[in-house]
């Protein structure tokens, strides 16, 4: 965290203080939706809308059959209102939005929405060096910088387009990391997923810019089920960012995404998330149910997958970005900040599955609870018999603000090879009245003091984010904690 960012951050804080959730607006746009409910006809409808090949429809139907036999999981430390899966709508797309060939064809109302969100889709106005794919409800509306990436052989497009244009790649890797029947929500996603992003980086190519997807839920009573697949071929490198917002609505909306990463020999994937879905109001009304399955496979030797997440939004967050360390000498990392304020709940963590020799993993988790928020770290480190000399280091820190919130740490460690070295450290601390007063006595406002302390607490994680997003994340942390002191 460099110093100039602080000052700027302090200014921005003042601007946003008292604003609450500022992405809560609704875009007035005509959309085309499937009727509510879930059955094979709806799935066929979605598949047909997207002009999918038969293999994919079959794949969806088989996932649906898995799902029907599965039970909603209840092992997480979460209180979830019952979800009526038949009442939700599984497909919603802005009308007039038939696979735009260029930005000129994108509905101006949509472009304005993204401008309001601070995500310019116009390439010239876009953040230098960040290519953006924007997903609005169920469809991807624009992918910028495509041509430039194309010159290097990098494919970055919507999932739908990947199915049409790069069907073989999709077919080879889809479900290879997160199988259809992996868990209840992954099975649901596999049956009804709408759109998402697809990335392929060819051997030896270092992707020269951050690739970024912006997810936005707009329509009411709609679930969002996006699917992301990233393949880094031998010796390649890619850094990918994901951001999310949703309008403010009184009912809960379901977001069940699946992200699959594949790193082949010597490849590295850095995946960063800034999750700011609508968290619900101060009384816990509304908000997104964020049930996400994210998993990466380090297939090749010396490959590396690094997850960084800043989770500030959603009424409920249930996600465990994981690494399967198959290749010898492969490396998995998980850096996480999760904030729960008001009545938000988060049960998040990671799984590091060590299969190959000399595999290493690092877990740094920072949980911040304020208001009546509940924050659980749940992590699994498993060292399999063939994983000679595997190493894991886990650090789990919890910060409490006020006395009505809770922090919980649930580490599972399974070691099946005696050469393994597994270290786990955990701390819980509280922001004290004395710390706040000390900062205020030096001239910092209450909000600035809180932001300073919280950012200090999280800095090991924030420094893993690309620069522009680190600043954004600092702001979000401050806004999310608004009203939690004083």
């Amino acid at each position, binding site marked *: *965290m460099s110093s100039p960012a*602080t000052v700027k951050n302090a200014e921005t804080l003042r601007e946003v203080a008292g604003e609450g959730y500022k992405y809560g607006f609704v875009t007035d746009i005509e959309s085309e939706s499937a009727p509510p409910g879930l059955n094979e006809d709806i799935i066929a409808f979605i598949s047909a809308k997207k002009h999918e090949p038969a293999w994919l429809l079959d794949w969806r139907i088989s996932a649906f059959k898995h799902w029907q036999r599965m039970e909603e999981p209840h092992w997480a430390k979460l209180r979830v209102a019952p979800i009526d899966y038949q009442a939700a709508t599984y497909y919603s797309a802005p009308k007039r939005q038939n696979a735009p060939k260029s930005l000129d064809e994108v509905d101006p109302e949509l472009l304005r929405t993204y401008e309001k969100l601070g995500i310019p889709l116009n390439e010239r106005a876009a953040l230098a060096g960040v290519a953006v794919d924007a997903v609005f409800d169920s469809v991807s509306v624009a992918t910028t910088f495509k041509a430039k990436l194309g010159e290097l052989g990098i494919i970055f497009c919507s999932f739908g387009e990947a199915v049409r244009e790069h069907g073989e790649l999709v077919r080879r890797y889809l479900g290879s990391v997160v199988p259809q029947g992996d868990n209840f929500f992954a099975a649901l996603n596999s049956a009804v997923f709408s759109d998402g992003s697809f990335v392929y980086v060819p051997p030896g190519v270092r992707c020269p810019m951050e690739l970024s997807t912006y997810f936005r839920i707009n329509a009411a009573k709609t679930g969002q089920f996006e699917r992301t697949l990233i393949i880094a071929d031998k010796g390649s490198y890619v850094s990918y960012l994901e951001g999310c917002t949703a309008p403010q609505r009184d009912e809960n909306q379901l977001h069940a995404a699946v992200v699959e990463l594949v790193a082949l020999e010597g490849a590295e994937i850095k995946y960063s998330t800034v999750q700011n879905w609508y968290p619900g109001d101060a009384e816990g009304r509304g908000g997104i149910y964020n049930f996400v399955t994210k998993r990466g496979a380090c297939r090749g030797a010396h490959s590396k997958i690094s997850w960084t997440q800043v989770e500030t939004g959603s009424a409920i967050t249930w996600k465990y970005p994981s690494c399967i360390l198959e290749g010898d000498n492969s490396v998995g990392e998980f850096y996480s900040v999760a904030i729960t304020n008001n009545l938000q709940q988060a049960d998040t963590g990671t799984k590091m599955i060590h299969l190959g020799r000399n595999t290493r993993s690092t877990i740094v988790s920072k949980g911040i609870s304020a208001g009546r928020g509940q924050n659980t770290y749940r992590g699994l480190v498993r060292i399999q018999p063939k994983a000679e000399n595997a190493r894991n280091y886990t650090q789990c820190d919890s910060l409490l603000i006020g006395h009505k919130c809770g922090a919980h740490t649930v580490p599972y460690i399974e070691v099946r090879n005696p050469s393994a070295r597994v270290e786990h450290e955990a701390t819980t601390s509280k922001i*004290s009245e004395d*710390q706040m007063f*000390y900062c*205020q*006595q030096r*001239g910092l*406002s209450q909000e600035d003091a809180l932001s300073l*302390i919280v950012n200090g607490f999280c800095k090991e994680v924030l420094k893993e984010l690309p620069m522009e997003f680190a600043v954004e994340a600092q702001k979000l942390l401050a806004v999310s904690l608004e009203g939690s002191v004083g």
Partner: protein
Amino acid sequence: MLEIRNLHARIADGREILNGVELVVGAGEVHAIMGPNGSGKSTLAGVLSGRPGYEVTEGSVLYQGQDLLALSPDARARAGVFLAFQYPVEIPGVNNMYFLRAALNSLRRARGANELDAGQFLKAVRAKLKLLEIGDDLLQRAVNAGFSGGEKKRNEIFQMAMLEPKLAILDETDSGLDIDALKLVAGGINKLRAPDRAMVLITHYQRLLDYVVPDRVHVLSGGRIVKSGDKTLAAELERHGYAAYEAA
């Protein structure tokens, strides 16, 4: 500069700790407050700086002509009030320099001055370190985290030098210092004496006052000032103790 009239304050359990404090400190003056343990010295410092946990039940405090008690703690700081804590607070994870720059820029903004960028700030830091003749070993660490008692006190004086307050209240900044550190801190305080700056030194020891010669010395006992005098009062207290003023 500071005018305290009939100040009464109590703590959460209802006990009245300040019991009619009268104290006037003029610009450019240094006043020492001495008194037995538990007599209310830190409470007075806390009430003046707006520390939570105290309720003022009677009296008034005028600072530069305005009602100090009406301001929030951070507004008081921005108006130039600085408290060197008897027990400086640790803030793990927050870099000392980063903290100080945020604080300084917050004060500068309030004064209508431009904020200092990293380079300008570093220059100012170097100048103050040199003035105070202290090393830069503490700068890269987290605020007070793992500092020794003496290091914490030195850091308080360094912050004071950087923030350039108008009214500095130093609560036992000399306690727990070895003789070299005491000289260093005293030297720092003397360098910061200025015609437009008032200082209130809370101390138990004549020692500090040998180096920093006060304009006035007050004895606080039972929650009020029971005796005031010039610097010779400190020497007298050193010889006879507080017995004569107890439970006044």
